[in-house]
């Protein structure tokens, strides 16, 4: 029951961000943030309805990559003008590559390497960019909260990845127990960070 309430709050925060929190941005960041927070909203609803066992689905890998990839694309497009075009190409190609390697059976470690690289770069961007911008005065101090959200999304992603790889850092029961709280904290940090930016 507690998990469901936490997931519901996560969904409501994500819904608020999609509907109101990103107004005023340019078209591409609005699209990117809508994808990211929209995924969080739909994922929260599905976890409430289907239960946390839904995380066993192979599609989770694709969805969990889309969230950091889209959020990081929005951040770079808004705040790091020099890298706009390059990051857009990386995000599109990265997503397509992960989609392809997950849908078509691949031998070898390529799908895992690809996932690690794309996920890693996107996660680090969400973590480092807001903190660097807040510290250097290019954004309000509150913007650093988006970075905190990035750290939490990275933590959740790592735990799930290791679990899926058969080398869990924590037991599956513990991970599933803390995941709803982690998702809520992460979403709250994102929403607050964007509001204070």
């Amino acid at each position, binding site marked *: 029951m507690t998990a469901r309430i936490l997931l519901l709050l996560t969904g409501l925060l994500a819904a608020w961000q999609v*509907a109101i929190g*990103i107004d005023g941005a340019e078209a591409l960041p609005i699209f990117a943030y809508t994808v990211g927070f929209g995924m969080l909203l739909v994922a929260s609803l599905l976890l409430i309805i289907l239960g946390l066992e839904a995380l066993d689905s192979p599609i989770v890998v694709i969805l969990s990559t889309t969230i950091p990839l889209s959020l990081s694309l929005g951040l770079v497009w808004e705040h790091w003008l020099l890298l706009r075009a390059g990051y857009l190409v990386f995000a599109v190609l990265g997503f397509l590559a992960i989609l392809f390697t997950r849908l078509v059976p691949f031998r070898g470690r390529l799908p895992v390497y690809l996932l690690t690289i794309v996920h890693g770069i996107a996660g680090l961007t969400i973590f480092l960019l807001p903190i660097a911008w807040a510290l250097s005065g290019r954004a309000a101090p509150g913007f650093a909260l988006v970075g905190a959200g990035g750290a939490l999304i990275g933590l959740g992603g790592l735990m799930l990845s290791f679990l899926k790889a058969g080398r869990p850092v924590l037991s599956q029961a513990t991970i599933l127990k803390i995941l709803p709280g982690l998702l809520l904290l992460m979403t709250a940090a994102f929403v607050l960070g964007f509001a204070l930016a």
Partner: protein
Amino acid sequence: MHSVLRLIRTKFKLYWPLTKSLQTGLLLSTGLAGYMSARCPVMHWYHFLGLGVSLYLAIAGSTIINMWYDRDIDAVMNRTHHRPLADRRVTPTEAVRLGLVLSVLGVGLAVAMNPLYGLIVFAGLFFDVVVYTLWLKRRTAWSIVWGGIAGGMPILAGRAYGLGQIDGIGVLLTLAVLFWIPTHILTFSMRYHTDYQAAKIPTFPSTYGFPATRFTIALSSVIAALSIGTAGILIGMQWGFIRLLVVLSIGLFLLAVASVFRPTERINFGLFKYASLYMLAAMILLSI
């Protein structure tokens, strides 16, 4: 006095399940949303209250009459054999009287409030009880189309009451509910397939098979989402709320597609639950 209160409480506990509170609540929410899509913010609370009371009475009344007529089906289905009419805690005469009284009160109040509104509420009751339940439900799987049309009447009634006339947006919203109904009912009839077979009720899964039913659900989900989205744009819904509606619609579509290509019991029931949540969320967004 104490015994009277106890009797009322006991009767209420027996009658409440006859109204299918969740389904009635969802249909009521579509009616209120239809009104608010035309009259937001709500300036006259007594109009809004009248709308809510008349719709609730008419929907609950028709639901009770349906349950009275279908009590033989309910008795042989695992899912429904414990209902008060099926297990004889409420007598058929008592139930049909209650259903008729509520229906007459609901339609009567609706007609008194506005004749056009009353006519649409009556049409909803007529399509639901006479066309869907009495005439077609035991004959053809396509009866759900009429069930869908009946289900679309509250939102049309609410909007017509708000505007004083039937407009294109109202028709579009009715279509949205009509095409949402298969997502709701067909997933249900797949989940309780053996129950419906035992009761000899023709359903899409029993007539056309599961794959065709899943495809129908996916297609109707897309049409429902497009109808609600178009209505939202035409109403002048804020851009942010349209974004949110699109996100929720994509979730519905993805689940429907997943149920076509990777069908499992869990996905099927997930789609059923999500569809209800989707409709409620869409109604809230239309009302803001």
